[in-house]
């Protein structure tokens, strides 16, 4: 049925008359609408199931036997799981701060500097984005054991920062490229030093992007499994590593509660990433910033 919808998709094409005016409702091909509706149902059904059954009074995954918080109690009563949750938050916070700082500086250098090795730098920045996580995980594990660094939260953080820098750089760079360099030149004409110009002119203009990128990194780091899996020590282990161990023993409702809780944290983070830039009194939305568009 997917191929049918694809073949029919172009029927929608001629419906549009004026670029600025959204097509009227009756212009929309109905089957395409149904297809998109179904798509969202399939995307969200499993997640809804996890959330719903995290409140189930019984162990069953087939029958909902009344509302209960017992699986959340089980989650928070466990010493191991609590320390894992705290470890995950700690890792994500440190990763966010360090990677955002490094990534922002790198973005500025890539946009404003014209040196021989900027091209190579650009590739070096992009490659981590397309490197499968398992390659990153195994090579990080090898590095840490070769230099004799004991696997712990520190090694996880080091790995996470390495793979978060590029996300920050890509988001901040898109914003910076849209920024008129003449504003910076004007500040310098008025006597500001380069550092002052960077701190007082460039950084404030980049804030929405920096903030959105930072929160994105927090969410990615908090959810990361593969990198953490290869670089984690014995204890405490981040939450996703614990989930992995638990899932392999089969389906238990506590995982529903943990999953729902993690979902809530991610949702809040991403909500902030989208809303905060707007709350700062700017016209653009955080989503536009993350997607590299201006004034969305």
């Amino acid at each position, binding site marked *: 049925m997917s191929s049918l919808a694809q*073949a029919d998709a172009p029927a*929608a094409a001629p419906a*549009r008359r004026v670029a600025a005016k959204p097509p009227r409702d009756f212009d929309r091909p109905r089957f395409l609408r149904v297809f998109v509706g179904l798509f969202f149902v399939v995307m969200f059904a499993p997640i809804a199931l996890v959330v719903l*059954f995290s409140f189930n009074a019984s162990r069953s995954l087939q029958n909902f036997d009344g509302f209960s918080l017992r699986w959340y109690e089980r989650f928070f009563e466990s010493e191991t799981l609590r320390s894992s949750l705290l470890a995950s938050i700690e890792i994500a916070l440190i990763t966010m701060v360090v990677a955002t700082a490094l990534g922002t500086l790198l973005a500025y250098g890539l946009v*404003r500097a014209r040196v021989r090795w900027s091209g190579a730098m650009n590739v070096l920045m*992009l*490659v981590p984005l397309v490197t499968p996580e398992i390659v990153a995980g195994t090579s990080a594990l090898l590095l840490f054991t070769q230099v004799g660094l004991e696997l712990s939260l520190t090694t996880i953080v080091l790995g996470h920062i390495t793979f978060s820098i590029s996300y920050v750089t890509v988001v901040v760079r898109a914003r910076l490229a849209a920024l008129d360099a003449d504003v910076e030149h004007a500040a310098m004409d008025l006597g500001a030093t*380069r550092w002052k110009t960077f701190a007082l002119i460039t950084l404030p203009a980049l804030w929405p992007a920096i903030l959105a990128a930072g929160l994105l990194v927090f969410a990615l780091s908090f959810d990361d499994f593969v990198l953490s899996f290869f670089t984690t020590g014995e204890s405490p282990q981040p939450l996703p590593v614990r989930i992995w161990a638990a*899932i392999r023993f089969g389906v238990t409702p506590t995982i529903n509660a943990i999953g729902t809780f993690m979902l809530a944290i991610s949702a809040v983070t991403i909500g902030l990433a989208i809303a905060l830039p707007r709350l700062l009194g700017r016209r653009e939305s955080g989503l536009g910033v993350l997607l590299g568009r201006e004034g969305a």
Partner: protein
Amino acid sequence: MSENRFAAGFLVPGGLWLLLLFVVPLGILLAISFGTTDDLGNALYGWYPENYERVFDSIYIEVLARSVGYALATVALCALVGYPVAYYIAVFGGRWKNVLIALVVLPFFVNYLVRTYAWIAMLGDEGLVNGILGDDIQFLNTPWAVIGGLTYGYMAFMILPVYAALDRMDPALREAGKDLYGGPWQTFRNVTLPHTRQGLLAGTVLVFLPAVGDFVAAQLLGGPDEYMVGNLIQQQFLAADNWPFGAALTVVMMTFLLIWMVLYLRSAAREAREVAA
């Protein structure tokens, strides 16, 4: 101090970090892949190309081929499902565009393990679907369960670049296609599709790369018969303790993916130039 040198200084901290914690580890990986292990299973450097000969043994080559096959099927499914969705949002989204795109991205921020686990809860022997049907259909431990899990996991990587390309496209182009008496299908094939080829290419690579290296879907939704190269690598590193062989497997996989990475990076560079121009 020239503006150029001032800005170049900003490249140093991030550049050094990536050099030391990304490039150097890849170098170690390459070195270890030619190494061996001592009696205790510790990795030792050396010159043992046997690791690579072993990778090309029939059992391992089969797993590699399976990984590529699953990843290609995933790309195809993502494109077939994702393109119409991206098209609908870009063309008919109106003021709901941002909300709809946010909805596409949202599942991506639910932990990948939890999302995969959710499918076990849905389709497992004691899962919801079998409960509703009162039946005992085996969905899991099949190749399609793994491919479906991968498709579900990486869908957003296809939709986002395709959407961006469609959104950038001037609607007047489609109009022109129609004015020139092109039917819907012709307009799509000759106007819309060529204009979104780069988005489609980006989506293909962004889905293909992580899908080839994935080991979560195969382990949770499949079984040993569906294992992918990621499962092998993970076993060598964390269970079998044969790091040199695991490293050799990783290097072979990486070499194969390099072609795709170069394709993507070139397309990304071209796009950056076009945006800048």
